[in-house]
């Protein structure tokens, strides 16, 4: 599925291609990640759920190129992350991946717009993508903020630390989406929001990803969102190293 901003990378079918991926922290307690297979296609919006402490964040670290893979195949957009050196992975992440955290998403000393344009400072690729949409990256940031219902001048001028958590998460979403990255990794971004805001935030994020054709990997311990995603993955079933009760691999469900 090629989005309106689709580049050549977007047209590749497979965004994530994991085979026999293993990862162990150095303290020698055995692998925390042992995934025989994981595949995410372009434009898919995937919910990954599982208990906390099961290694979800480690997987995100691996997919984001922050944690170097140790064993197995880890290909993103057809490129082998295991073969990349640290700076190359950093570059790759800057160009192709947007990240939304659970909390504390914003750099406190930057304005809302500066926070949103941050990826364009680190990636000329995303900067160029942003400039294809708007005349400046600041305008593009405001375009995204407007799409995420944060267009009030009053909000834009306020210090980011004074924004509500819900507003902060939407600014974070705008930052993850600006410059058309191929994939957005969201690490429990709704866990600090109350029920109404959760719904609203999720709706906005899913809509924008669908509109842009951005692949979304949404991690949560809450599987109640499942109906709204294209597909869900039970991390406990996916990860053989997961100490959870369901060690038996479960066939992945397609919902969409």
């Amino acid at each position: 599925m090629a989005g309106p901003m689709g580049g050549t990378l977007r047209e590749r079918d497979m965004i994530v291609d994991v085979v026999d991926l293993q990862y162990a922290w150095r303290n020698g307690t055995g692998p925390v990640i042992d995934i025989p297979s994981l595949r995410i296609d372009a434009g898919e919006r995937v919910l990954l759920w599982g208990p906390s402490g099961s290694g979800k964040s480690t997987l995100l670290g691996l997919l984001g190129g922050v944690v170097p893979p140790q064993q197995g195949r880890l290909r993103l957009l057809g490129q082998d992350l295991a073969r990349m050196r640290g700076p190359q992975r950093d570059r790759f992440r800057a160009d192709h991946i947007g990240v939304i955290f659970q909390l504390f998403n914003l750099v406190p000393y930057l304005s809302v717009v500066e926070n949103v344009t941050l990826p364009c400072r680190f990636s000329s690729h995303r900067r160029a993508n942003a400039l294809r949409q708007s005349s400046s990256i600041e305008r593009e940031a405001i375009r995204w903020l407007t799409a995420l219902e944060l267009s009030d001048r009053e909000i834009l001028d306020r210090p980011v630390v004074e924004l509500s958590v819900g507003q902060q998460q939407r600014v974070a979403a705008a930052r993850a989406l600006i410059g058309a990255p191929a994939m957005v990794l969201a690490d429990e971004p709704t866990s600090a929001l109350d029920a109404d805001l959760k719904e609203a935030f999720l709706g906005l994020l899913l809509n924008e990803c669908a509109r842009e054709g951005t692949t979304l990997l949404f991690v949560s311990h809450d599987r109640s969102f499942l109906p709204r995603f294209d597909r869900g993955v039970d991390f406990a079933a996916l990860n053989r190293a997961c100490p959870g009760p369901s060690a038996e691999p479960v066939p992945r469900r397609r919902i969409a």
Partner: protein
Amino acid sequence: MLGLALKSLRNRRFTAGLTVLSIALSVALLMGVERLRHESQRSFASTISGTDLIVGARSGPVHLLLSSVFRIGSPTNAISWDSYEAIAALSATAWAVPISLGDTHRGFPVAGTTAAYFEHYRYARERGLTLDEGRVFESAYEAVIGSEVARTLDYRSGRSMVLSHGAGNVSFQRHEEAPFRVTAVLRATGTPVDRTVFVSLEGFDAMHAGMRQGPADYDPLKGGRVRRPGAQHAEHDGRDEHKDVAQAITAILVGLKSRAAALQVQRFVNEYAAEPLTAILPGATLLELWSVTRVAERALLTIAAFVVAVGLIGMLTTLLTNLEERRREMAILRAVGAGPLDVMALVAGEAVFLTCAGALLGVALLYGFLLLGAPALQAHFGLFVEIAWPSGRELGVLGLVLALGCLVGLVPGYRIYRFTLADGMTVRL
């Protein structure tokens, strides 16, 4: 990255400002100590040049140098006019200028000498004394004053002044009956000459004449005034007449025809049979003086260096304290594409920036202090500080501080590097 670093610093401007200020003050102190050390040596060394030997009564060389040239400390004992003549008559001697010291005028030292002083005295390599206005004294009751005396007391040539006896700021014997007339003001030299009132040897003796009558003349109950029989002291013209009157001088500045003869003449003086004399080579004695002051200088420099160390450790503490808070910030930057080395550079670069800013501000403070404080240093310590560019040694000190600042920055830099490797993108603090 640079923009980010600056915005981050601006966000913490209060602590950053304090850090910069503490580094600046410590740098200013360190450089100030070094500057004063250098300036005092330069100022001392440039005060006397062209004089090959200084002769005085038998005493320590440093004492003789300080009292005769710098007017610091009490004058050495008197020496006889005959000794002066003997030294002046030596074939190796090009010129010899007698000086009498021990009196002050409103806190400024008074020196009795001859007109030859203005001809032969040299400072700052080859510079001679210049009269700003007027002429050299020609009679006993005339005086030539240094620029600072003129400025402080607002004296001009033609004005009369009363010279009193005894060193010190307050003198309770005033010879108002025998006023001296200022005939000339010397151009500023940046040496103790500026602070000196010069009179002829005759004039100097005239001041003394009353005192030589003994303490009986001094009656504190009558207002502390002395009624001197010698108040109507006759004017002396010429040395011949003076020879009978002036019994004693304090020191002799000697210029030689050839420097090579200095040691020979020095030996002649030191072994002079008629009275115990000391001859010193000003340069060599200055070195001796430095060796005395070196201990204190080193102590001061060491203390200043420790203050700099304290400033840098303060910076390290601030940076490390901020580090925990900044882990989140760094995780965000990592997520948008910053590498661990970028993050390290951001934190270490901050230390470099703070040190540079501190060093620059410190230098600015130093020059500010120098500009504001130079007149006070001159007035109170007779130290003439030249506002010059930083010397090589000062730049070296500055470079060392910067290098240490960078080194200090590596500590939080390395820690955040380790943090970012361990944290990845998921910081839950």
